[in-house]
């Protein structure tokens, strides 16, 4: 069983060795470029995290042709995406849309960054007030001792 799963997985992984086939391409280079761009945003449903642009699976090929058919029919990029999501669900989108269920996905990195910036700011300010209160200038004896230490270290490095 495990062996079977492993082979199946390996097949799925090794099949996507190639992507777009010569026969699929559109004659109009501008349309073809749009098709490639859209393909990179769409997931090959039977593969691991691969776009249909990278995948050689038959289903990915079908989707690539579908994208191109819609583009030839005059759809805008957004219309093509809506058309495909209506039929295959949001799972095909490699960039999940922002909605109630994905708010945390998109916002967590931002929130962590913000929280981090605030805590660093607070930390640095606290350090600064502490330094204003806490550090007296060095006394002559301390300066002399510091000089000795520095000399020692430099000597050591040679």
């Amino acid at each position, binding site marked *: 069983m495990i062996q079977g799963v492993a082979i199946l997985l*390996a097949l799925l992984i090794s099949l996507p060795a190639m992507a777009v*086939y010569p026969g699929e391409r559109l004659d109009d280079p501008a349309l073809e470029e749009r098709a490639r761009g859209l393909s990179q945003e769409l997931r090959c449903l039977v593969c691991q995290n691969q776009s249909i642009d990278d995948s050689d699976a038959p289903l990915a090929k079908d989707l690539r042709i579908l994208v191109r058919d819609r583009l030839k029919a005059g759809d805008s990029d957004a219309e093509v995406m809506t058309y495909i999501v209506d039929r295959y669900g949001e799972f095909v989108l490699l960039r999940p849309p922002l909605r109630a269920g994905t708010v*945390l996905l998109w916002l967590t990195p931002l929130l962590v960054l913000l929280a981090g910036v605030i805590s660093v700011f607070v930390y640095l300010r606290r350090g600064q007030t502490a330094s204003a209160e806490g550090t007296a200038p060095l006394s002559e004896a301390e300066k002399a001792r510091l000089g000795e230490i520095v000399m020692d270290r430099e000597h050591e490095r040679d």
Partner: protein
Amino acid sequence: MIAEFGHFALVLALGVALVQALGPLIGMPFNASLGRVAVPAARAQLVLLSLSFLALVYAFAVSDFSLSLVAANSHSAKPLIYKLTGAWGNHEGSMLLWTLILATFGGAVAFFGSNLPDGLRARVLGVQGLIGAAFLMFLLFTSNPFLRLDPAPFDGNGLNPILQDPALAFHPPFLYAGYVGFSIAFSFAVAALLEGKVDPAWARWVRPWTLAAWCSLTLGIAMGSWWAYYELGWGGWWFWDPVENASLMPWLLGTALLHSAIVVEKRGALKRWTLLLAIFTFALSLIGTFLVRSGVLTSVHAFAVDPARGIVILGILVLFVGGALTLYAIRAPALKVEGIFAPLSREAALIVNNLLLTAATVAVFVGTLYPLALDAVDGTKISVGAPFYNLTFVPIIVPLLLLVPFGPMLGWKRADILGASQRLAAAAAVSAVGLAAAWVWQNDGPWGAPFGIALGVWLIGGAFSEIGYRVRLFRGASLPEAAAKARRLPRSAWGTAIAHAGVGVIVIGIVGITSWRVEVIEALEPGATFEVGSYTLTFQNVSSYEGPNFRADKGSFLVERNGKEIATLTPEKRIYPVSEMPTTEAAIYTIWVADLYVVLGDQTGTGAWTVRAYVNPLVPWVWIGAVIMVFGGMISLSDRRYRVGAPIRAASVPSARARKPEEEVSA
């Protein structure tokens, strides 16, 4: 017989690991001498697990199919090298390697850690032994590699053919050495919490171990990426695959840990944060192990699709991370906050480094695990792919890269930003030249690409500027004087500069491959001639041949440039009959600043073949840069002040080893 010997050694290792853990952790408060058991126990554990691992490798080498693991994962027709590496090309064997590496790090502390205070060393080894005991139990009770089969089959099932590759065969050991190496940082952190003491000496001891683990992980990730590039057959080098992310997360946080430990060592600040980082870095290593082996993610790497094993690893994860965090909550508040510094200082710069690296780790973490969580909560299935990371990870990392050259130029405590900027003027100028050159060179490429190149040049230039500044080049020092100073610079300074320059090289590679790739996909008959970039290729023929354990179709392409023949490329399509799996062997001609990448596809009925050819500009720099980073790390590791086990004043105090540890702490 040899297998039983290995099995026995494995069971014995578990017993020894328990002694190694319980002696110092439970026994020491009652009787100090119980802590001393840790050192010999750690040595014994290393020896036992080495023997056990060698026994398994031997079983694979002689194709002992009476071991069910060998029967399931090897085949008599395999080349010897892949029989050997097959020992860790499966769940059970790789877990054994995992525990061996854990024991190797523990053994290294036992053999070379004589400069550590006895109590700290015993506790570090105790925690290490506890982790080892948990994983050895996991190995013995759920994933025993030494189980026999009766009757033994006549031949084995083979090994996934795409894993039969030199880079991939050695990618797991480096990756594990990285993952598992962070266990030492974790053990040091827990030991410090147990002792209630974190001082600069602690940071100085912890850094070389972390650095060694980091170097291994960097190399392991680079090897995996290089393998994907040439083996999967369309020249991708990073896919944001959950399993890749699983290795990237501990790398990012481990990088943060390396930098924050500098602050603890030099200035005594950031102690608590560094302890947390050490705990979380190892937690992410364990999460990576869990993700790959539990079956919650499926991937080419996920060879153990067995939820029960996943739950055990999750249990280990919760136990260790939960335990460490509880200990942290109890003990950390007692740690004295030290080290006062201004908002503009090297300390503050390293904090910003940590902040951005942590945020980047969170972006990867959320992207990897959110789909699983959402599926569990309301059954919605979503995909998170490259476009998500381009919008979250990249905007966090780019500012970090922009700031990298400033860090080493800033002084401790209070820095002079104007001065630092002046010192970087040359780097900025060179970077502007890079921007202009890339702009002119690319005709209608993406507008962002030249800025990306400029960023890479800025990083490299910044690294050189730092060395230049430190040797006072062009600032009153003559060339020979500067050279003499350069020789006397501490190795860690060189290491920093080299590693940072390596990052710049990687950035340039990434920008090149993502922005300027040239692609030709055609159905061609032999005899056809076509152009890719500045190369002219002639498709000569396709021939078939039999390899040791595969059949192959081999295409032959003559490559010309400027009318001169420069190479013949022979991409292949292979079928491995044992598993009926096809693989592609891309043919690559590299001129170091670009690769010509040719793939032979399927036959399209009428004698024509699908042929894909790419010019991948600058892509080798991605891996060259990673190797440069590792080299920088190793230079730093060889610094006398950090050398593992070297007494701190070896040169001036011959009997340094005999000194009491307390003296070193106060030194």
